[in-house]
């Protein structure tokens, strides 16, 4: 009798917790939409394409932040790709045992360092060097539009470099997992045919893990889109559409972190929440898609 009751309670309690999590994701969307409703009504969808953000004049457009977010995120993901693929291969096929484990845990440490500490380090240690690099590029390659603005140090380039470092452990851990799934006999067959290590990697391993690399990059893109503190500290916080890599800019997350607690007018607050809603939708879509892909890889539906 008591057995039955405790079992039922146990089951129901677990079910409630499961449901709560499920509804939570939907709740976030509803809450953000309702808090942003004022701005959604005022600005509509054209909010996304307006390039002026000036709280003093009560004009709000998200374009500068969308561009800032996507440039820094895509650029850092793109630049991190060779590094993360290289490192994953190194850890899975080039070294073995303890040494590989030690390096793996060191790289995991990168993920555990708080974002605000990356920001602090970036601001005081990295930005001065990036300023030197920018000045040099400006002087000798300033005719290229990407390098054609006054270097401050803080800006798109600094944010990209910091993001690049921060997302590395995430894509590496995903790619490493997928690498484990490459069957040994495939590789051995390659070696038996006389291929050397790189040829096996290039012709057998890399094609096999293509979709895993895609998912890993996607997940790190999701992280890069939403990264807040470190980016806020090194991006220079300027509310205009950036025209060069050296321009100070803002991302969706950084403008929220910067302005939210100073925002006094209702339309300013709800426009910032509108930005948060956009950020939420983007990172939701990216994460959701990548999780579905990873799941398919895990169940073996995609072989190549």
């Amino acid at each position: 009798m008591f057995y039955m009751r405790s079992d039922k309670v146990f089951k129901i309690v677990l079910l409630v917790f499961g449901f709560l999590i499920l509804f939570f994701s939907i709740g976030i969307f509803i809450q953000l939409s309702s808090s942003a409703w004022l701005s959604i009504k005022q600005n509509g969808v054209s909010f996304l394409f307006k390039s002026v953000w000036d709280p003093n004049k009560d004009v709000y457009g998200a374009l500068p932040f969308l561009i800032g977010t996507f440039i820094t995120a895509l650029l850092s993901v793109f630049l991190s790709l060779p590094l993360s693929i290289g490192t994953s291969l190194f850890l899975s096929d080039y070294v073995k045992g303890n040494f590989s484990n030690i390096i793996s845990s060191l790289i995991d440490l990168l993920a555990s360092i708080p974002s605000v500490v990356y920001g602090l380090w970036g601001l005081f240690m990295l930005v001065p060097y990036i300023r030197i690099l920018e000045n040099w590029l400006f002087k000798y390659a300033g005719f290229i539009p990407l390098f054609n603005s006054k270097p401050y140090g803080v800006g798109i380039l600094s944010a990209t470099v910091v993001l690049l470092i921060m997302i590395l452990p995430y894509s590496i851990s995903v790619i490493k997992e997928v690498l484990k799934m490459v069957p040994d006999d495939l590789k051995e067959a390659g070696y038996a045919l006389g291929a050397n290590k790189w040829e096996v990697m290039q012709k057998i391993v890399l094609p096999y893990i293509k979709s895993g690399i895609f998912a890993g990059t996607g997940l790190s893109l999701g992280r890069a889109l939403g990264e807040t503190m470190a980016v806020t500290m090194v991006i220079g916080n300027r509310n205009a559409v950036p025209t060069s890599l050296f321009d100070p800019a803002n991302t969706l997350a950084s403008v929220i972190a910067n302005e939210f607690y100073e925002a006094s007018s209702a339309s300013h607050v709800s426009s910032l929440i509108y930005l948060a809603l956009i950020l939420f939708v983007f990172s939701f879509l990216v994460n959701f898609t990548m999780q579905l892909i990873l799941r398919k890889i895990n169940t073996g539906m995609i072989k190549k």
Partner: protein
Amino acid sequence: MRKIKNLIMTVMISLATLICLIPLFLLLYYVIKMGISSINLDFFIKNPKPMGEIGGGMLNSIVGTLIVLGMASLIGIPFGLATGIYLAENKGTKLAEWVRLSTEVLVGIPSIVIGILVYSWVVKTMNTFSAFAGSIALTIIMIPLLARSTEEVLLMVPNTLKEAAFALGASRWNTQRMIVMKTAMGGIISAILSSIGRIAGETAPLLFTAFGNQFFSTKLFRPISTLPIQIFTYARSPNVVQNKMAWAGALLLVSMVLLLNFSAKWISQALVKRSKN
């Protein structure tokens, strides 16, 4: 030709690994070098002095961080464990798959969005920034992390153990409590520690919830100072003395987080060793 290409690629791949590790060492080196000079007894037992004055410490932020983290763990641990157990117990059912997918998606939600959310839910309703609101924000980040790692740990418990318990007439609840949880205890503790480590450094969700406080406060329903927020404020200050404080705070925060992570790893490894013997 083929050999040369192989050699070049081997070098490139090793180089890539090296490039990934360099920032870690540089960062740790700078945090230690810059932080150690400002860490002294005062740092731990004194509150901050007004800007411009030398001396003072970060006592209020240290205590604040402990309060916020403690409260977040208090709510987050049972919730996260229960969700994890639910996922492990109901593996394969449609609903559990959806729940799992939503925990994975929740992990990916930018923490600043969580901050805004808790601002709308808690801060607006209670009409004040508070330590409580900060803890809720951290709890929301902690739950999916803990749920996922708990599930992983529980799935490693051999099914035969559970079946043996059922065969003896134990209920699901009792099996879970006496067999599964006991077997997986080490893994669960390590999952808890590393999820606390993850939320300890979170800054963005605290910006509009715990907010910050210049003064010493232990009140749950008042704004409270925390280490990450204080590091952020001091880092952006034009004042050199405060910049130094930011480095000292960063050193303390990084040590805390690394300590939590190392002990989590150590516990799980020690248990693996014990079960092998």
